[in-house]
């Protein structure tokens, strides 16, 4: 690789130990179906980058949230563009993870010794659903509010602990400022942190265990 990289690698020493992962043999007969996971990673990275940008203008407050979205759409340079990319990447992330899950399921790649990687992948899918759900509230418009009202009310149908769960999720009795800031925190800190750890372990296991031979 380039001279700058070699200089950095002179301090880090990552190239040599990673060679056998980066230049590993892959089984013959792989198709584009084996790129779905990589495509999901691409959308995850796009979401991460555009999310970093959006967080500079978004204000997670009951009185300011909606106005800050309007400002983002109308006044901020390319605000509409960055927000649209974030929105569409979120849709495509879910689609591609689902397609990837189907591919893994169809090619029976969840079997031992890859069973833990299947579990990690499913957890990633759950966290990406959670990201979608928490991100949906943030525009703080009618659709966002009522979707969250309905979504969090579902927790209340759990027998016995329903109301406790609702309070826990909403941070109060109903969907309010407490819910908004809670969802914002989960959306921009907890879930990306959790997903990054899960994705790292996902790829680590892929490297260690290799790609399963197609059926």
């Amino acid at each position: 690789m380039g001279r700058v990289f070699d200089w950095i690698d002179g301090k880090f020493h990552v190239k040599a130990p990673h060679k056998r992962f980066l230049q590993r043999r892959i089984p013959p007969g792989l198709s584009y179906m084996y790129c779905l996971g990589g495509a999901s990673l691409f959308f995850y990275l796009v979401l991460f980058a555009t999310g970093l940008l959006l967080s500079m203008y978004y204000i997670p407050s009951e009185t300011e949230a909606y106005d800050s979205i309007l400002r983002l759409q109308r006044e901020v340079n390319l605000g509409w563009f960055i927000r649209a990319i974030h929105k569409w990447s979120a849709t495509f992330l879910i689609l591609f993870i689902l397609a990837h899950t189907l591919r893994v399921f169809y090619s029976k790649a969840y079997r031992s010794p890859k069973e833990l990687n299947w579990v990690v992948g499913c957890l990633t899918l759950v966290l990406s659903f959670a990201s979608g759900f928490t991100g949906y509230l943030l525009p703080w418009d009618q659709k966002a509010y009522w979707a969250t009202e309905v979504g969090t009310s579902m927790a209340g149908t759990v027998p016995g602990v329903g109301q406790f769960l609702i309070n826990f999720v909403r941070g109060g009795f109903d969907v309010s400022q407490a819910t908004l800031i809670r969802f914002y925190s989960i959306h921009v800190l907890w879930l990306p942190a959790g997903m990054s750890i899960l994705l790292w372990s996902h790829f680590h296991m892929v490297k260690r265990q290799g790609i399963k031979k197609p059926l």
Partner: protein
Amino acid sequence: MRRRDFLKGVVKAVLVSMACISSSVAALFIYPASVKQREITMYECLSEEELPRRGVRRLDIEIDNKGRRAAVFIVAHEDKCFALSPVCTHLGCLVSFSRHGNAFICPCHGGKYDVEGNVIGGPPPRALTRLPMRVDKGKVYIGLKV
């Protein structure tokens, strides 16, 4: 038991209990400190003459001076007059009254209630909540938990 195994066990126990304690502290921190127990407050909303004689009337009650409003339905049906909460008992959306179908219909999942608030279709588990209503010196008061 060898001393080494004993110490290993002790260290493990300390680590596990530390993890338990810190996660309970975190959960306690995340749980809302005061979930307000809502008291019923009676709001004056209209005069007795304005009560509907027959049918359903939607009313927006101003609940504070910041312009927050709460909607209620006042129903006059078979000589009775009562107030219904518009909150769907399924998942909390607001129902609207359809004059055409003579029923309350929830836009979210199609819950349907008759004019008395009883479920006649869709997923709601219970009838619409009846709100306390009082007529005093020609004025109508409706009780809301806000």
